[in-house]
């Protein structure tokens, strides 16, 4: 039942996202009919196409039709290519998912150990180096970091392809670009959390019992310190999807982020709405999942709380 309640709680969020997206894409300047017909079409042709696409109806009517179709699992068709949007999403979503998951793995496998080292060597050179690294990584925007990584790893070292989805390791550079921000956050978060936990009574007790330091850190302190880190990872997965919009464009990675950018440029309303809806759904679901994992790690927290 608590789980059902949580699922029901998603509905208002998703509805809000749908409404906002619908209003925003319809209110920003730009008209798909003009993009499609160009400048020499007659007024009658424009009106006919507007009617055919349903764009001549009042916005509330358009929105209710849109909701009705969504309820039947129909995302509609692209205004420009006439392709079914569900097919476009099915084609692009796995590419973005691969990118996001690999970025997450990279960020966790670098950020968490770096944070642990920084906490254990507090105020010494490893701590300063880790903090400096985290600050530098978090300060670099994706559109700048991407070409920089290409220059180093593709052009100078020749290890990886510059961009695109072909060639061995093509995913590594976009994943590294995407992972940098999250790595920085996880490093700082793990460091701060572990430092706090290391001063707790139960850690002192574990040491007093004569447990080896390695066991104290890994089995006792780290387990408690990772609670806020898990929350951050869940929240940041949504940021990874948002970051993918820029990273996929820079690296020519055919994911949902690039599809979103292209659809906005062409004022392809149904595709834009579908992309934003999918990103929002993933975001909400990951948050719910984070809550579930959180309650597993810390038995004091229950879904009902």
């Amino acid at each position, binding site marked *: 039942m608590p789980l059902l309640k949580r699922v029901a709680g998603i509905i208002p969020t998703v509805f809000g996202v749908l409404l906002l997206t619908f209003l925003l894409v319809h209110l920003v300047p730009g008209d798909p009919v003009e993009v499609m017909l160009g400048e020499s079409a007659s007024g009658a042709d424009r009106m006919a196409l507007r009617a055919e696409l349903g764009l001549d109806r009042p916005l509330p009517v358009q929105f209710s039709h849109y909701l009705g179709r969504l309820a039947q699992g129909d995302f509609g068709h692209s205004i420009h290519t006439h392709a079914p949007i569900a097919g476009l999403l099915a084609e692009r979503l796995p590419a973005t998912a691969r990118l996001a998951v690999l970025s997450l*793995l990279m960020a966790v496998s670098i950020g968490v150990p770096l944070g642990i080292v920084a906490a254990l060597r507090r105020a010494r050179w490893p701590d300063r180096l880790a903090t400096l690294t985290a600050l530098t990584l978090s300060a670099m925007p994706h559109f700048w970091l991407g070409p920089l990584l290409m220059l180093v790893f593709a052009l100078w070292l020749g290890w990886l392809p510059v961009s*695109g989805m072909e060639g061995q390791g093509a995913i590594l550079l976009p994943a590294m670009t995407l992972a940098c921000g999250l790595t920085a956050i996880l490093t700082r978060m793990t460091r701060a959390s572990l430092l706090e936990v290391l001063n707790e009574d139960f850690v002192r007790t574990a040491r007093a019992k004569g447990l080896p330091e390695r066991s104290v850190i890994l089995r006792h302190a780290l387990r408690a310190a990772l609670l806020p880190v898990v929350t951050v990872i869940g929240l940041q997965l949504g940021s990874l999807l948002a970051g993918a919009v820029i990273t996929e464009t820079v690296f020519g990675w055919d994911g949902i982020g690039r599809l979103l950018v292209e659809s906005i440029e062409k004022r392809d309303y149904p595709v834009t709405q579908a992309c934003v809806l999918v990103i929002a759904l993933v975001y909400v679901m990951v948050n719910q999942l984070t809550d579930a994992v959180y309650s597993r790690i810390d038995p004091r927290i229950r879904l009902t709380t």
Partner: protein
Amino acid sequence: MLRRLFFLAVCCLILTGCTKSPDPSEIRFAIAQKPLTLDPRYATDAASERVNRLLYRALVDFDARARAVPSLASWVSEDPLHYRFTLGQAGRTFHDGSRLTAEDVVATYRSLLALRDAPHAAEFANIAAVDTEVTDTVLFTLRHRDEQFPARLIIGILPAKLLAAGHDFSHHPVGSGPLRLLDWNRNLLLERLDDRQRLVLEEVRDPTVRVLKLLRGEADLLQGDLPPELVGYLKQQPGVEVMVSPGSNFSYLGFNLTDPKLQDVRVRRAVALAIDRDAMIRHALVDASRPATAILPPEHWAGNPALAPWPYDPALARRLLQESGVELPLRLELKTSTDAQRVRLATIMQAQMQPAGIELVVRSLDWGTFFDDVRHGKFQLYGLTWVGIRTPEIYRLAFHSAALPPAGANRGHLQDAELDALIDRADWPAVTARAHALLPYVPLWYEGQFAAVRHGVSGFQISLDGNWDGLVTIVKQGH
């Protein structure tokens, strides 16, 4: 811990693997924008039109001076309302092996007339009927006289039987051009019919990334859409050859003639005189760019070589503004897209105009918003480029008072009876002279074209309008 690390490593391997490497025998062309559709009836963007020229053949093509010349067919005009086209023998085989016939021509143009959502339909609204006569002959009957009619027939011919079956040409083109599409998954994979050479068109939006791909060998060819500093950088790189050539794409500043300040032609002339085109061409544009005087370049058959470019004379510009009675400094807003090169050029103009007493405010907007503002007259000045213009009909579309948006591209709302009459009479030298005097646009330049190829790649010819016809002759050595 070790088990977790092992799990992580396996996940990484799964996620990074599963990719195929490019075939080194393919010629890879990194393009800024991929085509939107391979159906020539719907194509309006430059990339679609450029690739469709190679996938399909049209009845008519253009020579070096942009005069209409026979491609699939030659023609005679029996009277001002009837044009008879006779198919020749070249390019008569569709990629599916069937023969291109007069019925295919008729079916293509009839389908175009029947479509309500096709952007080119309006251009052919003047066709009253299109019919086959004897074998290989098509007769077009017009509603009104149109001396430019043959030059309009540049839509690729589609097979009638596939049109009848509702075939999706947008992603599965069947034409009779020199290239055919093998696959369009992420990239376009094309094959040249003559020698089976495969060509890959890969969209790479970021100009820096395109350059890096060329240097790394992931691309064999780039053409256009690079800022001049990257072109200069490429010229210094070993293993890369950069070719430049004059272009015909016309860049301009458009005025809103409904704006009270800009209705006075002296103010418009002041703006034209306040821009140092030569300096901009020298320092901020690709080599081979040249000052423009009219939409069509002087070498075009309807061009006007007698027109002189506007000189840079800020003192005269200031005097004109003072004479017009506007308050100095004159504050004007220039709208442009967010393209970095466009913003840079606008910023240079901003600095150049200051001595003339013009305070130029630059507003860069995302493309959709920018173009919507331009279409709806929400601007004082805007900067754009006409790309791939072949016929003088552009003057009707851009300057005739019957072409006010949304029914045309007279975005500045120019209304001049004398110019309308000249356009209606097709007196193009007089049209260009009148437009030069009225100054609805400040002509800026015809941007130079360039291409860069890796060593070992040859045979690519640059065209005036930046089309991709060079793909028909390009060769990669060793493959």
